[in-house]
């Protein structure tokens, strides 16, 4: 009796610090986002007393459907392209010689440790109107001198892929590393074409990695703010930019939280899926940073 009580006490002592910290500074703030969406804004940029439905009406802003549509489209495109590129790369890394594999993995992991802002900023110079890429493309008559490479949705797409790609490569590689390549040989011996073996044996074999890579890219893409802010222009705003604009430019916190609530609800299903997959054990999707 005494020892069970001691055991419970020990569990409580070990659990309480992080449990309480995360409840106060993570769970509560997330719930507050929903609560503040029903509060009126005050003139000094804070939240006024009382409750109102009116803040939700701010979601009927005529610009929003277009911005939400762009967010969805850019995020999905980033995800699809990242996956399409990562799967052959993971296949290559898993099959090549050890020293080469270590080198490639090392080079893929370095971006995790370098500043996110700097990597985005580097693209600003690449796409700059006076940059070498612009000069080269004008020289090759691919674009005329008036076309801007920066400040457009395509620039946002490229840079989003650039920042998210390592998050797709690493989980897929982690799955490919465990894949038994003798299966591909078996498929080839049984008369399957190489491509058929790739699609019908390799890809199903690394499914868990692909799914987690998919979510790992999709979820942050929906909330991206810095990339469209730095390389995008007025015509390439995403939901994140509007949240930031409501928060800091308009100082209208309730309107910002209404929009953030929409974002949470949109991401709830993929996030729950992630948590569920995690519980099932074995074939769990893993965030890329865990793999590192």
């Amino acid at each position, binding site marked *: 009796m005494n020892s069970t009580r001691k055991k419970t006490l020990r*569990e409580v002592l070990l659990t309480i610090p992080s449990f309480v910290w*995360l409840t106060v500074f*993570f769970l509560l703030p997330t719930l507050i986002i929903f609560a*503040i969406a029903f509060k009126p804004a005050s003139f000094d940029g804070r939240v006024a007393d009382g409750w109102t439905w009116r803040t939700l009406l701010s979601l009927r802003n005529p610009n929003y459907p277009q911005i939400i549509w762009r967010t969805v489209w850019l995020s999905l495109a980033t995800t699809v392209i990242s996956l399409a590129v990562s799967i052959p790369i993971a296949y290559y890394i898993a099959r090549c010689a050890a020293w080469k594999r270590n080198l490639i993995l090392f080079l893929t992991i370095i971006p995790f440790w370098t500043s996110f802002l*700097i990597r985005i900023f580097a693209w600003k110079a690449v796409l700059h109107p006076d940059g070498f890429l612009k000069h080269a493309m004008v020289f090759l008559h691919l674009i005329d001198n008036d076309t801007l490479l920066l400040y457009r949705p395509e620039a946002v797409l490229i840079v989003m892929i650039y920042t998210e790609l390592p998050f797709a490569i690493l989980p897929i590689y982690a799955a490919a590393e465990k894949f038994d390549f003798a299966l591909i040989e078996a498929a080839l011996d049984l008369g399957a074409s190489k491509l058929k073996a790739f699609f019908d044996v390799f890809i199903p074999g690394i499914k868990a990695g692909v799914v987690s890579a998919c979510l790992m890219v999709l979820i942050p893409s929906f909330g991206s703010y810095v990339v469209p802010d730095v390389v995008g222009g007025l015509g390439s705003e995403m939901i994140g930019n509007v949240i930031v604009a409501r928060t800091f430019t308009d100082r209208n*916190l309730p309107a910002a939280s209404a929009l953030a609530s929409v*974002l949470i609800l949109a991401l709830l299903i993929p996030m729950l899926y992630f948590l569920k997959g995690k519980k099932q054990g074995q074939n769990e999707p893993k965030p890329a940073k865990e793999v590192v």
Partner: protein
Amino acid sequence: MTHLEKFIRAIHTILLAFLTYGLVANLLGKSFPMATTQTILFLLLLVLLSPVRSRIAAFIDRHQPVFNKFPGILTWGILLFFYLPIILLVINSFNASRTSGSWDGFTFKWYVQLFKHREIWYALRSTLIVAVIATAASTILGTLAAIALHKYKGYIQNAHYCLVYTPLIVPEILLGIGLLLFFVALKVELGLTTVIIAHITFCLSYVTMAVLSRLQDFDNSIIEASEDLGASSWTTTWRVLIPVIFPGILSGALLAFTLSLDDFVISFFVAGPGSTTLPIQIYSMIKRGSMPLINALSTLLLAITFIAILIYQIVMNRKNKT
């Protein structure tokens, strides 16, 4: 059919519907590059999902040598794509010209200007204060959490696990705005303290995962052996458990430190006047457009990162050998 297959099928359907819409929208008139990317994507998806696949497979089989090389070429091409912008940035930091379009000769003047830039050094100081405190606190909290999660099962630990895991997958912007609203609702003054609290919150989860994966790897029987041999649980914890999971704690702390140094989005929301961290400073410099200065600053930071990773690798290799 499993849920997974249903889920993937559903995503395929949504994507196809979505891209078909995109294609139609393009035909009705849109800018040229966007239309092309959308069309290429659509075709790519069609190829991957439709019966045309087998015909393409036959074509590829006829030209095997070329297509065999494809994954390798793609990999090295992507690595080039990863590093080209960064290399360009480093070269440009020594360029006397203000813009990247022309080379006006080699110079160190941007570095000299950088060292005279007071605000940067101030921001660096705040960043280091935040990173050190956040790393220490989150390492302790995260290690405790990982031990609890590993040792005990039951619904409390399930809830605990969800609480630790969810911050890893929630977009940063939501963590940021949630904390901002929380602090505003409690009328807390924004400053260095709020930034530190925010950093501890997101670092905690990463540390827990790092320690937990180490705990899952090691053999539980050592603990049992220690207990069987009569060691108290205090001794077992300090003399057996902690030394074994120490590499996990170390890598968790290292991860927490770099994430804290690098974080922009969350800090941006909860920073007040006087608590400008280095990423916030860099961001405002990017916005104000003193490009050569950021080139120089970025090059310095990249050099520090590379050296740190190199040292880490060498130390790790030496440890593995002994």
